[in-house]
């Protein structure tokens, strides 16, 4: 077996027993990236020098018997949405193509403190807006299982690099499904923690009340390992929770006897591919065999989730992205050319009013040139939905729906411990297939936005493949701060199946 096929937990064992060094291990992942990333395109930047230098430092420390962090020597790929001091952090946007933050995100600092090897930054939909990683300003990422297909998004780079064995652990962020949906498309695990479980300080905001960073890996055990490092209260993030962090790995081995698993059957009937629906049924059956009791539950307001989400997220985004104005941080348009016909014909937004002041003109051109179409679409949606006269009809109403959805979950969790259902209605689609139809793309988030709206933890776990061999994932939801239950169920499932150990042929 190659080092790159091993899990992070196995690699920690090899490092501890000196079966390999951190430098050797890091080198094999760097080599794997070099051989495969021209076809996958998972990374936006690779820090070969920095990674090898930290690996060497860890090897020296280990040899000297010094203290080592829980991820000592393990490469971690980080979505390019986090600030790293002096590290180019682009958010997949032309707007931040040259942004080198002067500070570390708390999550990045925690990974460094755990002695993880920060191997590179992964590709994403611009500002995390998208479900296919086609909206990256730099290049699309391809699904390692079929490079004609999307890896999902917006954490598509992180999911793809795990499937491609380019890194054993990765970090994603999830605003409406951006960790879980690409995890399902790429056949890996993605966990969206409870809102407030992982600090958002230094995570470039898309929709602040929904954004949450989380771990991605191939096994539940590795996911637990990574979550244990990044979770915890952070005084720099007022919304981060003061709830103590559990020992996520300790509970993994407990059997599932007596687990009440809620099944929202009503969800699976319409618009869900047959292969997906039957894979979820089989997963539920397996849970029953493992000792769980299946209970039918209902989430009556589930269907309104997408509508509420696509109001609330753009509203917050329109405000969060106002700072990219060409004056302070980010892309600034060059000195004004004379406006006239022919200037950015494909983009009606580029044509300004004749009486714009030079300041308004600079704002307009910087934002027109710096942002991609999907970002502009959502900024306009959000600006509209927050406007006087429309706010009650859209934003305020969406908040009411959000509360009802949360109440649905609260009611369901009175009766069950976890909920099971599909992560996505379909398997990975072809590149370009939905980019002309944003609505079809948005509907792919049908099963994932609920956890964000309600602030709950949810996980996607690989559980099968369709006729074309494309991965399928099931999703579990848990009550707030019950990540431990999600990981235990996922681990018990993986102990009884081998979907997680399958990988695509790439070379």
């Amino acid at each position: 077996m190659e080092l790159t096929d091993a899990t992070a937990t196995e690699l920690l064992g090899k490092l501890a027993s000196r079966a390999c060094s951190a430098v050797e291990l890091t080198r094999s992942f760097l080599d794997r990236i070099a051989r495969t990333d021209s076809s996958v395109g998972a990374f936006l930047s690779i820090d070969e020098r920095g990674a090898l230098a930290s690996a060497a430092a860890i090897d020296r420390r280990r040899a000297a018997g010094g203290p080592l962090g829980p991820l000592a020597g393990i490469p971690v790929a980080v979505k390019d949405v986090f600030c790293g001091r002096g590290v180019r952090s682009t958010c997949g946007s032309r707007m931040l193509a040259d942004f080198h933050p002067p500070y570390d995100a708390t999550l990045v600092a925690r990974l460094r403190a755990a002695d993880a090897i920060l191997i590179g930054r992964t590709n994403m939909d611009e500002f995390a807006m998208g479900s296919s990683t086609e909206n990256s300003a730099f290049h699309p990422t391809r699904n390692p299982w079929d490079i004609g297909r999307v890896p999902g998004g917006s954490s598509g780079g992180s999911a793809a690099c795990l499937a491609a064995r380019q890194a054993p652990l990765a970090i994603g962020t999830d605003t409406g499904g951006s960790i879980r949906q690409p995890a399902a498309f790429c056949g890996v695990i993605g966990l969206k923690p409870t809102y407030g479980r992982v600090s958002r300080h230094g995570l470039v905001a898309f929709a602040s009340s929904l954004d949450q960073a989380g771990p991605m890996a191939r096994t539940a055990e590795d996911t637990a390992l990574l979550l244990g490092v990044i979770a915890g209260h952070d005084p720099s993030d007022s919304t981060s929770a003061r709830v103590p962090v559990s020992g996520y790995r300790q509970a993994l081995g407990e059997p599932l006897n007596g687990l009440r698993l809620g099944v929202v059957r009503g969800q699976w009937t319409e618009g869900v591919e047959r292969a997906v629906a039957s894979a979820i049924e089989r997963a539920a059956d397996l849970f029953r065999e493992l000792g769980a009791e299946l209970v039918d539950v209902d989430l009556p307001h589930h269907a309104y989730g997408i509508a509420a989400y696509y109001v609330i997220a753009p509203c917050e985004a329109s405000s969060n992205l106002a700072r990219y104005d060409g004056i302070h941080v980010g892309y600034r348009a060059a000195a004004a050319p004379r406006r006239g016909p022919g200037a950015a014909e494909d983009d009606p937004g580029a044509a300004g009013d004749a009486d714009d002041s030079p300041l308004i003109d600079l704002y307009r051109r910087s934002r027109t040139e710096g942002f991609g179409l999907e970002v502009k679409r959502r900024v306009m949606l959000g600006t509209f939905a927050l406007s006087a006269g429309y706010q009650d009809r859209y934003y305020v109403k969406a908040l009411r729906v959000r509360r009802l959805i949360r109440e649905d979950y609260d009611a369901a969790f009175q009766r069950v411990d976890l909920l099971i259902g599909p992560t996505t209605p379909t398997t990975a689609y072809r590149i370009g297939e939905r980019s002309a139809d944003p609505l079809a793309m948005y509907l792919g988030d049908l099963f994932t936005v609920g956890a964000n709206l309600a602030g709950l933890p949810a996980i996607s776990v690989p559980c099968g493949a369709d006729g074309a061999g494309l991965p399928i994932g099931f999703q579990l939801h848990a009550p707030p701060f019950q990540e431990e239950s999600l990981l235990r169920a996922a681990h018990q499932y993986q102990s009884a199946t081998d979907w997680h150990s399958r990988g695509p042929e790439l070379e």
Partner: protein
Amino acid sequence: MNAVPYEIVVGLEVHVQLLTRTKLFCRCDASFGAPPNTRTCPVCLGLPGALPVMNGRAFELALRTGIALDGEIPDRMKWDRKNYFYPDLPKGYQISQFDLPLARNGRLAIEGEHGDGPPRIIRIQRVHLEEDAGKSMHDEHEGRRDSRIDLNRAGTPLLEIVSEPDIRSAREAKAYLTELKLLLTYLDVSDCNMQEGSLRVDANVNLHVRPDASPHGSVIETPIVEIKNMNSFRAVERAIEYEVARQYDEWTATGATRATAPKQTRGWDDREEVTLAMRRKEESSDYRYFPEPDLLPVVVPRSRIDAVAAEMVERPAAIRERLGREWGLDAAAADLIVHQGRAFVAYFVDVARELGDPRRAANWMQQDVLRVLNERSMGIGRLAVAPGELVDLLRRVDRGELTRSRAKDVFQRMVETGRSAVDAMRAMGIESVDRSALEALCRELVDSNPRIVADVKAGKSQAIGALVGQAKRRNPNADPSEVLRICIELIGT
């Protein structure tokens, strides 16, 4: 008092910078006057990924103010984003409070129209906390059109205090501001320094034209004008006076009313003493307020409000009342003492209590103590004379050890040297002159000045002043009034 056919209606919006060491949502130094852009961090620069963390001290000061203004404090308060684009606003939004402000429905009592009589109550619509923006500096000299931005001020805590339109004259506007500033300084909430921008005032002004002067026989409201750029209370007063006259003229000429004309913003030109229409700011008037998702709502339990109220310093209005009730001061004296600040009031009370003569204590405080403080431009906290020492000095005057005018000199010496009254007197060679010595001195002067005596006898009574002058030269401690009395007796007119 129906000299003019309209009623003046004014509401004031006051922004004060809170006296916190750090900014509202980050740990940057909030002090005034540092070189541009040296008091910044990712949070107040609005860098991607940076998050606000509320300054608990700022909240405490705001709460104190809300309670001191008798406002209703909701048990839950939230933050909102006010969205607009401007170069001095790096995030593209300002964190403020929209529909759940820190306090509502407060009140501030101000002096009545003629300085006496019952106080006027100005209702306070709302008090809320928000972050300040940076400062744009436009450099247009030598043909350049540079704009520079200093973000030191960005994120400093501001308290906005909005009055109801209850103010009925320019004079009343000034009285309201004076009382508000006094209260805020008593509360240690702000230094209210208008020059450094820690207190800013905008005034909303219009007229209600009386039915008998209006064409339809009903009250007509002129369009509301917001006046900006007033840099002193005096300017506020002048700007309102100007605006009232201007609005009446405009109404007479055009008949425009609040219903037909939009609200206008005008700037006060301090040199020309006029208000001028301001160019519309390059920003949307729709601020698209929504709850700030990066901050949690603040829950204010009743117990916390009670605790802040319990620790509240005595408010100026209450002290004025107490100075009248307990110490018998008239309104003007009480007001003057209250305006000198908390420490001055405490000093007065100490002197008045020990001396047992509050009026005399008040006179000394208002004249001599205040004079030396003003001469030295210092606060009473730095006065070298303890209240007990001042009382000792005044008692010596009572005992005839020195005259009142000498006492002023001694006090001056005590202030300069920090010595006790007795030491200062000794150093100045002051001792009381006993009556027989004084009589002997007067007899000697009468005997040796026959011409003066003759003049006095001839009816030129002012000639006796020369004898008093000589007595003072011979013995500086001689009490002039005693000398005068004895000499007149001896001459026997």
